[in-house]
């Protein structure tokens, strides 16, 4: 065991050294007084943030847009995820199950930002592209979680309804759904929380929200405006953190 540890440490050190060597980073130049003072100048140019009422209103709109992108994207994903989770949980036989699982895996394995870059082609610049991007990726994540929830749900209630003559769809709606809905809602809210953060940065590829404003203002060298947006992002994330902690404490337990 000791030998394994030593080997891993040596390997890691070698990997770190190789990485720095491969990238040929010129840290002497990067950490030089000149570069340092230039970076300091750049950092100072972010202060003070632009707090004119006009720009604050614009930032507020961007924040609302970010929240809307994440909410609608997550809602869309929850609906689509449930639709895909039904075959993925093996309700319609093995072939639909494999196809649905493959689809979910595919949707999930492409990161949100790549989806956003693709959706900008399909739906044009703006928040709709961001909404779709979040929706595709989240469908992959949520669909799999939903499928697992459905697989783990106790089959007895639905079976009882079936054997007393109810149709399969109704047996599912009244036998299985009531038991799993809290779990589905919990998963969706959890993903929404993640998606708010994501929606704030998707705009870097043109998909609306605060990210797009930040990208534009940095490109136009409007650092005070950029600082306002960064502060808005931080406030948004802090707010979401606090809200989800509060909700977890008061609702779940």
């Amino acid at each position, binding site marked *: 065991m000791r030998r*394994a*540890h030593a080997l*891993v440490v040596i390997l890691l050190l070698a*990997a*770190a050294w*190789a*990485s*720095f060597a*491969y*990238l040929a*980073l*010129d840290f002497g130049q*990067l950490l030089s007084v000149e*570069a340092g003072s*230039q*970076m300091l100048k*750049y*950092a100072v140019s972010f202060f003070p943030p632009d707090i004119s009422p006009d720009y604050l209103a614009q930032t507020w709109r961007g924040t*609302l*847009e970010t*929240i*809307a*992108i994440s*909410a*609608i*994207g997550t*809602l869309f994903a929850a609906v689509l995820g449930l639709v895909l989770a039904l075959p993925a949980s093996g309700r319609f036989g093995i072939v639909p199950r494999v196809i649905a699982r493959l689809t979910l895996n595919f949707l999930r*394995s*492409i*990161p949100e*930002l*790549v989806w956003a*870059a*693709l959706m900008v*082609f*399909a*739906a*044009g610049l*703006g*928040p*709709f592209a*961001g*909404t*779709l991007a979040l929706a595709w990726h989240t469908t992959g994540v949520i669909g799999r979680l939903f499928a697992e929830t459905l697989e783990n749900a106790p089959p007895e209630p639905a079976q009882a309804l079936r054997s007393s003559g109810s149709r399969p769809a*109704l047996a599912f709606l*009244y036998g299985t759904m009531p038991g799993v809905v809290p779990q589905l809602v919990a998963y969706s809210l959890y993903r929404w929380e993640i998606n708010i*953060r994501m929606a*704030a*940065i998707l705009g*870097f*590829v043109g998909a*609306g929200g605060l990210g797009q404003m*930040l*990208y534009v203002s*940095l490109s136009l060298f409007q650092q005070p405006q950029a600082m306002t947006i*960064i502060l808005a*992002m*931080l406030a948004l*994330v*802090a707010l979401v953190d606090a809200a989800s902690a509060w909700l977890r404490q008061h609702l779940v337990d």
Partner: protein
Amino acid sequence: MRDPAVLPRLALTAVLLLLLWPGFRLAEFDLVLLFDPRNLEIMGKFLGTFFPPAHSGDFLRLILKSTLETLAIATAGVTIAMAIALPLSLMVTRSLSISRIGPGPGRWSGRAARVPVRFTLMFFRSIPEIVWALLFVRAVGLGPAAGVLAIGITYGGMLGKVYSEIFESGDTRPAVTLLESGSGRLAAFAYGMMPVALPELVSYTVYRWECAVRASVIMGFVGAGGLGLQMELSMRMLRGGEVSTILLVFLLLVVLADTVSVLLRKVTA
């Protein structure tokens, strides 16, 4: 047969939709736009070029180079993150505070010193890595350096917090005993705390490395080098075949990072 709960359920749905309505407006949600013939044509043409994936020797060599660059950015970034996180987490770990042991001078100054360090770590990690990357691209120029610095800063903040939590949550008695019998801070850490905490430290760091690989692909989109930069270029030029090759390589890379991380954690656990 009627659903006894139909009214409350319909009412809840209606209220939710009403609440979400402004959201639909703000998000410019418009599915019709997706099926607009002109958009469909552009997208269809682009998607049509996805097959077959580009596989010319030159392109594959280029992709290999940027894949290695991505891996190197992630590894170098995590190395910097560790260099930031270790000393800072030692500073904020309360169990390693000598002034806390007994009444004496330095109690308040010790506490006061921990606050700004804690705050720095929080500041580092609460700005997403891609925002750092965007800022560093403007500050040090396009290329891998921006990516390495961005990962170093963000992950430094995350690792610093988690390291100190690991130190605190393990058995702190050996370290405290050493401190109480007069040992120095670093010695108490090295002999009292490190042996307990090492497996968890390694396992969390390796997990973060895995995240860094994914993050460094994404950061390429804002110009921080690696695979993401290639993908962004290929997309701009509407070369679908190249995009699909890069996506495949990206998936392989994620699976690879995952496997390596599981292996390393198994060996060190």
